[in-house]
């Protein structure tokens, strides 16, 4: 079930370094939200703070509030492991588990958490997830081959299958297509459009056309200079951002007149 996320006054730190400052935003359920901006402005950092992956890095911490359907993700009683079960993530570089087969990779969310599940149910889940990630037809005859035996684009779709197999409410994707060819990129964009029926999707991308093609809402991050914190400059419906943005900086960035 898709959920909405409300972020208020979020400051994100690496040790003493303030990487992202003062983010206020509402992410709508059952839609795709794209985050764009120049390199190093804190898009990945912000994305990782949404499912508490940020604090995995030594010294990293977060101030402010992230609320998902009324549940405070950084509240005293929130368990980061639990949060991550509800908010899945796909990384920039495909990272299937090298010791596991294709099947086991998709079943990893269940297996690694030692959830008991009947073999038939698990088979069913794996098939559904692989179909959901548009990979089933390509791998159904070799489910026991290692996950790393697939091509880069297939591996990335395998990672998406792995992420949706735990049935999260929200799916975060950090430049999921940056290592892929145009055909695989198209496959994953189609996939995102299908997935948004069931999930809330947030995607970071450097590809303006991609943001324009797939997303409903777009957020533009920017930073004033090296060592300065990144900020969310503008957050608006995608059409507005790409046709008539409120901020001068957004327009400059989108039209390529930048830096």
């Amino acid at each position, binding site marked *: 079930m898709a959920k909405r996320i409300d972020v208020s006054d979020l400051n994100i730190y690496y040790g003493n370094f303030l990487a992202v400052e003062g983010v206020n935003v509402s992410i709508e359920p059952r839609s795709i939200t794209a985050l764009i901006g120049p390199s190093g402005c804190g898009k990945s950092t912000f994305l990782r703070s949404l499912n508490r992956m940020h604090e*995995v890095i030594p010294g990293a911490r977060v101030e402010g509030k992230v609320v998902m359907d009324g549940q405070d993700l950084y509240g005293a009683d929130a368990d980061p492991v639990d949060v991550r079960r509800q908010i899945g993530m796909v990384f920039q570089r495909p990272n299937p588990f090298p*010791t596991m087969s294709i099947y086991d990779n998709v079943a990893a969310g269940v297996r690694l958490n030692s959830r008991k599940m009947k073999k038939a149910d698990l088979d069913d889940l794996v098939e559904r997830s692989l179909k959901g990630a548009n990979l089933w037809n390509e791998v159904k005859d070799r489910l026991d081959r290692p996950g790393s035996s697939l091509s880069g684009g297939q591996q990335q779709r395998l990672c998406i299958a792995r992420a949706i197999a735990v049935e999260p409410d929200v799916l975060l994707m950090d430049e999921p297509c940056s290592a892929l060819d145009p055909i695989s990129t198209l496959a994953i964009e189609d996939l995102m459009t299908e997935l948004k029926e069931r999930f809330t999707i947030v995607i970071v991308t450097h590809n303006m056309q991609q943001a324009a093609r797939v997303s409903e809402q777009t957020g533009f991050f920017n930073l004033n200079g090296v060592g300065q914190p990144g900020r969310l400059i503008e957050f608006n419906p995608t059409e507005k951002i790409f046709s008539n943005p409120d901020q001068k900086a957004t327009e400059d960035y989108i039209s390529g007149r930048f830096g």
Partner: protein
Amino acid sequence: MSLQTSPTSTGASADDATAGRSRRRLPQWASVAAFLAAALVAVLLELLGEFNIALVVIYTVVLGTVAAYVVSRVVEGRRKATDRLVTCLVVSAFGIAVVPLVALVWTVVGRGIERLDGEFFGSSLVGIVGEGGGAYHAIMGTLIITLLTTLISVPIGLMTAIYLVEYGRGRLKRSITFLVDVMTGIPSIVAGLFAYALFALFFGPGIRLGIMGAVALSVLMIPVVVRSAEEVLKLVPNELREAAYALGVPKWRTIVKVVIPTAIAGLGTGVTLAIARVVGETAPLLITVGITNGTNLDPFDSRMASLPVYAYYQLTQPGVPPEYAIDRAWTAALLLIMLVMGLNVVARLISRFFAPKTGR
């Protein structure tokens, strides 16, 4: 020596490009030919006087190197000549390094093979004065003590490494790393004295137990396991850990089910090499386990025999006549070398078969 003219000029080096020399190349085997010629000269020289194999080798190496350099300098130019000179030096250095190893294996095999028979594996030294007898008790002792050492060291070493890589922060991590470094350098006799002193506290002086030997060897083995496991665990990409966290897998489960399986080949190799490192230790066992003539398979009860200590006593206290005991010592030494080589082979097999399969 034949000259070869290569059709194309390399023209790469300024000093080659100047003269017509740049086209002329000696064949690949020119250096070898120079050495053979040098060897011939050396043998002839020696035949004139007293024949001495060591001198022949030294003459060959020196003359061969000089000849190869001079010929190449005249024909090929300076750059190629330097290349040949350095190649000769490197190969000679390698030869010097290998000589002791080959000589050692040669001697040990030559002298040890004689008693490598069924009796050596099947019987102990009970009631043996001269001929016959074996090392069954010492072989079993070494196996038992090494097994116990492994059982103690691997869990402690692995968990320390996991702590250092996955959890450790700040000062505690730094001091543990420092202590492990210090432990790596502990002389083995000190490890033995430590175990002896520890057990003497509880059981009184003069105590000798198999388990004491295992404790002493663990002091030597733990830092080796920690070091190798740490290196291997660091090699596991962070992305895999993050992939598991992003699925809502707790940290400890990520370590047990993702990090360790990914690193298992390296961990197995490291442990095997660590075993090979301690299996031949003599000094600590000498003072903690002692020696017996009979078979004792209980590491918690009195003295045991072990291969290194067995070899030591057969050599230093051979009895009369001494030849038989000395033969047994050589065979024990041969067995130890075979054990260490076997462990190294096992380590290679482990890293071959357990490495993550890419399937490409």
